[in-house]
């Protein structure tokens, strides 16, 4: 992406975050049961949704790579998964803080969404070790794509299995956004949009940096530098 596109994207991300933070702290009502702590919902859930979508997008881009054989799709898939992993660390941290605040423990096994997310995160944490343990670049891209597709299909299946294993014992306490009051729902949607914009911005920056590095390498090879 050119520098102008990056600038527009960055400025709109900052603006969206300002709006969403204003809404979170000044507009959305304090939740009756959990009080101020519930505000972390506007950070944790958008992070999780964007991160999971990033994993699935990574799988779709990997399919495009295997279908076309074009290495650029693999680079995009790598960037999407890399960024989703970083967001995933945020999800686990905020989820842990939330669990500590509302249930008194840093980790609860009875919250199936968080547990499923941990399993997905552990699986994707092996993406980079797998990728960089293969030397041949073409094979590296192909194997990474195969992994990305398998793992992307694993995401919904894993959520299904973990949900099945606990939903009959523990009713869902929170995290469901379907029956939110209107001000909370609005705040949530704006936060989600801001988070998605942040993801897009960071991905574009990483893509641009990688492309520049590749370009620089090929230029210096042409000029005969090492």
């Amino acid at each position, binding site marked *: 992406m050119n520098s102008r596109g990056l600038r527009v994207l960055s400025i709109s991300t900052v603006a969206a975050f300002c709006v969403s933070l204003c809404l979170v702290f000044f507009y959305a009502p304090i939740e009756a049961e959990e009080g101020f702590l519930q505000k972390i919902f506007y950070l944790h859930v958008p992070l999780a949704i964007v991160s999971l979508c990033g994993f699935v997008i990574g799988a779709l881009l990997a399919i495009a790579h295997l279908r076309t054989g074009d290495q650029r799709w693999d680079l995009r898939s790598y960037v999407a998964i890399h960024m989703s992993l970083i967001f995933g660390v945020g999800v686990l941290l905020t989820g842990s803080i939330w669990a500590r605040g509302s249930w008194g423990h840093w980790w609860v096994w009875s919250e199936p969404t968080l547990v499923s997310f941990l399993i997905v995160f552990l699986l994707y944490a092996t993406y980079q070790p797998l990728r960089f343990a293969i030397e041949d670049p073409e*094979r590296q891209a192909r194997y990474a794509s195969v992994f990305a597709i398998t793992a992307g299909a694993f995401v919904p299946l894993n959520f299904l299995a973990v949900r099945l294993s606990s939903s009959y014992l523990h009713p869902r306490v929170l995290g469901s956004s379907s029956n939110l009051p209107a001000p909370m729902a609005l705040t949530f949607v704006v936060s989600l949009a801001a988070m998605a914009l942040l993801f897009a911005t960071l991905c574009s920056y990483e893509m641009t940096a990688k492309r520049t590095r590749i370009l620089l390498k090929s230029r210096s090879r042409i000029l005969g530098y090492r």
Partner: protein
Amino acid sequence: MSAVAPDTHLPATGGARVPPPAPRSKPPGTLVVVAALLRKELLVELRTLESVPGMSLFAVSTFVVFHFALNRSSVDGDLAAGVLWVTLLFAAMLGVNRLFVADAEQGGFDGFLLAPVDRSAMLAAKVLALLAYLIVLELVAVPAFGLLLLGPSLGHALPGLLAVLALADVGIAVIGTLIAALAVRTRARDLLGPLLALPLLVPVVIGAARASSPLLALGGHGGVGGVPIKWLATLGLYDLVFGLIVYAVFEFLLED
């Protein structure tokens, strides 16, 4: 097509009867290839005894370790299902790690890729071979578990347990084959195999352990009626979906 195209390579024989050329250009059917590859796998395993004895011995040693680690002379219910499945899973990892090593190191891949046959035949043969290893492993490990650790008698649980074992084995074999093929060309393959496979197999463990824990409970009702159908269905669904995914992507791992 039964009509034979005129073969220009044959010398003219002046109207004499020429025997029809041998149909050597026709590639063998996939089933024949799978059978040949499977035979090769099992033969190599029989002659080298690299995987299955190690897996079985590992399982029995793990039961002993569990006995001391848990400080219990017998287990039942959830705990028994957990011990059994953790042991079987980790023993299966040993087989998964070795599954493609001979092909990668001794030119098995090259030989296979040179042959004009369907690429997915290798997937099918490897899945079946791993399945056979797992069955032999369980023939040793499950009776040993009943003898060494299990509190309630194994006989009651066996019919239901067989169904759970069969479905879980298919899942482990399918995912294990994919992971083995992914990991075998990497530098740290012994490390990466289990790292990749364990998260992918968590749903199999959930299904298998939940399905077998009522079977292994004290005073539990054994037999097929005691198996929670929900978990068998989950396992079956997982096997089916991953079978299709692995079938779709496996070809790309052989493309060089």
